[in-house]
């Protein structure tokens, strides 16, 4: 808990720095007044057309989902990885074989998910 207090100050540091930098620019920079052309979205000089917020292929969400799943997997594996040496040494009364089999099975099942996604063509971009 104590260790996290200095980190809290860093949380505000980024916001403070970005905010003060943008405020400085607002205060000292030359402004040319509002202008419809100036505020237009920059699309290489061509006049903007249509809505900028367009619909994409929804299938891309699979990448985000796979990311989420491997994120969770990594989180669960972290405590196991940190105690792996200890567990395999038999210090804490665990059998080395069972520990290996556990982790192997866990990684294998996730690997199977990846293989499934691959075979179904979900890993194709575009």
């Amino acid at each position, binding site marked *: 808990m*104590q*260790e*996290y*207090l*200095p*980190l809290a*100050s*860093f*949380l505000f*540091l*980024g*916001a403070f*720095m*970005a905010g003060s*930098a*943008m405020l*400085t*620019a*607002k205060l000292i*920079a*030359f*402004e*040319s007044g509002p202008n*419809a052309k*100036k*505020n*237009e*979205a*920059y*699309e*290489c000089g061509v006049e903007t057309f249509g809505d*900028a*917020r*367009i619909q994409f292929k929804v299938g*891309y969400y699979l*990448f*985000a989902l*796979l*990311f989420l799943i*491997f*994120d969770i997997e*990594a989180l669960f*594996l*972290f405590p196991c*990885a*940190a105690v*792996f*040496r200890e567990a*395999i040494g038999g210090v804490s009364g665990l059998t*080395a074989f069972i520990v*290996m089999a556990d*982790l192997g099975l866990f990684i294998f099942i*996730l690997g199977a998910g*990846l293989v499934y*996604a*691959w075979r179904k063509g979900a*890993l*194709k*971009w*575009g």
Partner: protein
Amino acid sequence: MDLSTTNFIGDLVREYSPYSWVASIVNGVIAIVAIMAVGVGPSPMLIWWERKVAAFTQARLGPMRVGPWGLLQTVCDVIKLLFKELITPHGADKLLFFLAPALPLTGSFLVLAVIPWDHNLQVANPGMGVPFIIAVSSLGILGTLLAGWSSNNKFSLLGALRCGAQMISYEVSLSLIMLFVVLMSGSADVREIVLSQQGNVTDWWIIKAPFLGIAAFVMYMISATAELNRGPFDMSEAEQELTAGFHTEYSSTAFAMFFLAEYINMVATSALASVFFLGGFLPFAFPDFGFAPIVGVVASINGALAILPGFFWMAGKILFLITLFMFFRWTYPRPRVDQLMSLEWKFLLPANLILLGLGAVFIAFGLILP
């Protein structure tokens, strides 16, 4: 007081103050100043260095006019950016538009805070250091996605989506490689990981885990390049396709914040690579292999090398890795988006899973170098 394990200033304050939170606040304030110095300070220098590396790669001189060898060029660029007008594009979501630049910056500051720069130079050392790093580095992705959406520009949105997809994909690889390092060193504490590499060069994880270490290091560098959106993997700003990607609409200091975050992130990523694989702040030491005639000579050379404080070794390793990143950028051509995604999901990720399994087997059969 054991100087090698304590947080020096914090403990000093703790000795004189009855409240432990005073120490934490003092620590925090000092930490902010220190990180400003070590994290943000070198960024203009790195921008200059990048331009010089680029120039020498292409047989040019690079910036030469402002100051000796153009050293003050970046300072001029920053001042120029400060005087540029901050434009809010028509139809932009103002709240998100101005919040977005702060997020990557915050994320990279939080990573800098847990990096051990030397034995006593670390802002905070949470026991969960490595998962913490993975958790906060996602703020950068958040900033990118929000910047792209709030700009109300087709290129920005497309760039943000591409960049976001790329970053989340490679985040998976990075966290699995970090997991490998945690598995090897048996601790998720960043300082412990460094201290597990004490000894000579052969005790660094890049060599200590035979073959796996070097493979993990190479994959870390590839994933980090993609995660940082640096060339050759700078899909998000492929200018012939997307103008400038997610920050097309940003001008003035708001743009500078994204730029700054990119360089601070590069420092943080290189620092992590050095912590994980190259012994962090530990000095370079030659191995003697127990070969009697050279033991004395090697010991005296190592003693001489160890005189330099850890911070210099850390800085040296970081600079080396950053230069490596710069060489990547100016050497390789840019692949297509789908090739980049295939590289991650069809090569790096399965390779990482195998690496993790092999790492466990190596530990079980005692194949890690002593």
